[in-house]
Each structure stands twice: as structure tokens, then as C-alpha cells.
């Protein structure tokens, strides 16, 4: 399924849940590229954290806390 965009004539419920709208954050369009660049850095770091495989044999506390 392709990602819905603001140009869609019939936005999906997912698009309606756009986080900036939900949080009440409104900025002029010229700010979007800078925010996107910051978000891209966050995505890279998120992938690192998501990809980390916890060691199960390094120590008895090798599992993350719940």
C-alpha cells in the first residue's frame, strides 16, 4: 500500500492522524525541509536502536528491563 499524501483527494484515516495536527503544531511551509532533515537523522538513530540484538549470554542481566 502506498503512503497517503496531503494531495490525496480522499485522505485515509492514517493521514488524518498526522502527528503535527494532533499535537497542535503549525509552522510555515518553509520550515518543513529543516524539520524533515532533523526527522531523517532521528529515523537513522531509530533504525540503530531497533536493530540492536540484546545479548542473552553475556551476563545474567543480559535481557533488558521491562
Amino acid at each position: 500500500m502506498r503512503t497517503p499524501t496531503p494531495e490525496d483527494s480522499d485522505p485515509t484515516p492514517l493521514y488524518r492522524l498526522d502527528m503535527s495536527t494532533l499535537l497542535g503544531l503549525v509552522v510555515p511551509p518553509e520550515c518543513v525541509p529543516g524539520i524533515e532533515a532533523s526527522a531523517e537523522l532521528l529515523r537513522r538513530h531509530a533504525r540503530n536502536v531497533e536493530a540492536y540484538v540484546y545479548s542473552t549470554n553475556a551476563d545474567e542481566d543480559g535481557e533488558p528491563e521491562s
Partner: protein
Amino acid sequence: MNHSASIQDIAKAVRSGAVKSLDLTIATLDDIAKRNGETNSFTRVLNESAIASAHEVDRKVAKGIDPGPLAGVPFGAKDLYDIAGLPTTAGAKMRIGAAPAERDAVVVARLKAAGAVLVGTLNMDEYAYGFATVNAHFGTTRNPHDLNRLAGGSSGGSAAAVAARLVPLSLGSDTNGSIRVPAALCGIWGIRPADGAISVKGTFPFVEMLDTVGPFVRSAAELELVYELLSGAELGDSKTTPRIARLDGWYARNGSPEVLDALDMLMAHLGVDDVAEMPEAETARSASYLITAAQGGALHLDTMRSRAMEYDPAVRDRLLAGAMLPTALYLRAMEFRNFFRKRVKLLFERYDILIAPTTPVVAPRIDQATMIVDGQPAPARANLGLYTQPLSLAGIPVASAPFRVSSGMPIGLQFATAPGREAMLFKLLRELESDGILRTTETNK
């Protein structure tokens, strides 16, 4: 008494009556007025209150009352410390008109109680979100060793003021490396304390889980003295020979040859070839990055709803992106943090002190946009914290000390220890300074 004197020498001279605190304070204020324009370290100079404090110190000496171990020592505080009667700007233009603080931050009060004289506030990245001290409203703080280069951040004004000998002591804060990075780039000494070791009460928060405060000075003995005063700890002299290792893996990646050579020379001097692995360091940096963005974004959410365009644009973009970070990712980073802290604790069962570079490179030029990270161009300013961010997540005490440099830009090295082993850390730093392998980098002036 000139600006080369140590904190201990200044206090000794003032306590004995050989030097008047007032004379020293006036000379310091005059010097700041004359030279601050070079580095843009100070944002506010507190002439009247500094002179009043100096009078009080001299009055005590005249009456035979000991003004304290920092008698007459001029100091500056990063712009995020509460100072009674002044708005706490946190480097933000929108806070210039904020209500004045009712009382001094705890550590400012402790320094004043020890006889030190507050002479001004110091520049920083807006809301402490940066490693550069490039501030859209208050200007860029320049490195005293080369005015075309960054002083580092976010406590860049604090580091540059001490490196330029405007003051012998300053206060900064360290969330992801904001004391260690500028200390390294400016060739001086700084320490991030263990979580909770020094009170952050009365400072403008950034990421409460990671925020710490600490000093900048010009020698190991001064660092220990001020650390003891700020923390209230009495460290004593450690009798234990520390088990030392060099951090490898992540800490050997991306370091410039001059930085890695400095570390090689230090380890050879110590006669230590132990290498400690911290395979989680890269992930720890990423987790720290996510936690910072999410908590920073949440802290500023209300203000950003109505005043987003009043922020420094670079800071605004990071905070807005952080505010929209999905909770699942934030929780995953927090989960990793708990795991990582246990792993670091295990590492300190084998070692007492771990050594690594503070920054991968020497101070970048102010106009330098990128540096090479893993073979690819990456934003230079964001990556100055490459080596400091993982250790922040561990919550352990970490000092940045200047490696001896006879020419060129300063190089800083991190010395990390476990909470409770600070005495061992300071003893090692004093010994290495005495051996001449660690030494404050002098400016050419």
C-alpha cells in the same frame, strides 16, 4: 595577581589580605570589557553585583572572618543557571523578558558561599541543544585558539572564557557532552559528574534524565577542588592503583589521526595495553539521541504551539521533529538505556578507569558544514558528540582533560569511572598532569 594565577593561589592571596578581592574583580571586569569581543563568551557582565560581592569578601577578611576556599575567585555561569534578580535566558531570545529568578541556582550559591565572585553569564546553544555555541540571537562563540573555529557547545561560552583567561573558573552543563566537547576543543579541563552527584536545582532543564552540571578550569587540582565544593563530597587521596583500559571499537572508529595518536601516546606513557570493548556504544549514542529529541520536544511542546518561529531555527527543527517521535521508538530507546547501564556496570567490575577521545576531531572551522563519519560526509556539529553521548547514557562521571599539544589545536581525552571512584580518577589526572602528558593548551596571546 594576574590572570595566570590558579584558583588556589587567588584564594590564598585574597584570604591573607595580600590582594583585595575588589582590585581583582575590577581588573577582571575591565579585561572582559576589553577582550570579550574576540570570543563572544559573555552575554551579560554583572558589574554592580560583582563589585558588591568583592566588597563583602574584603570586609570579611578585614574582620578576620574566612571568606572561604574560593575567596575572591571570579567566575562565570552558563546562561541556563538561575541568578537571583535576572531572567534565566537559556540562550533564548524569547526568554530575555522572562520573570527574574528568585534565588541563585544551588551550585551558583555554593560557589558564592565559598567566596567566589560571579562576574557574568556565558553564551550557549539555545536551550543547550547543540555542540557548537552557534546561537542565532546571541551570536557564535569563537575558539580562543583560532577565532575562525568553533569553541564547541553547548557550554561554549563557559569553555572559551576560561581558555581565554577571562576568568579562571566557569560553570557549564552536560547532557550529551556539553561540558566535555567544549573543554576538549578549547584545551581545558571539565567534568560531567555522575547522575545526581551535583545538584541541577535552579538550572533550566533540557533532558532531565541526562542533565548534569559541572565546572571548567585550567588544572587537575582545580577540577578536584571545585568538584568537591559543588558535590559536597570529601574525596580524600585514593590508595588504590586503578585498573585502566582504553575503549576500543566505536571509540577507534572515525577518530582523526592526530586524536588517535594522542591517545596512543597517553596509553604508552601509562604502560597500559588493556583494551575494553563497549560493543553497545553506537546504539547507546542513538538511544541518547532519541531520548534527547523526545524529551526535549515534549518539554517545549506548549511553547512551540504558539511561538515556534521565535526559536533559533536549527533548534526549532530538532525540537519539532523530536516532539513527533513515535512513543514506541522512545520506549525502545529507554529500554536500551536500562540494558546499557547494566552492561557498563559490568565493565567497571574489571576496570576502574576507561579512556577514550573526547571528540573525533579538533575544533572544526565555523564555516565547516560536514565531517567524514564512516566514510560518508555527515553534519560536523551534530557529530562532535560522537564519543560523549554513549557515556552520558551510562550516567557515570567523565572528565575531559587536555592532552599536551605543542602546536596546533587542542585535543581532549575522556576519563570515565564508576560512581564512587572519583578520588581514583582525580588522582590519576593529577599524576598525568604532573608528568606533563596532560596539560592545558595555552593560547598564543
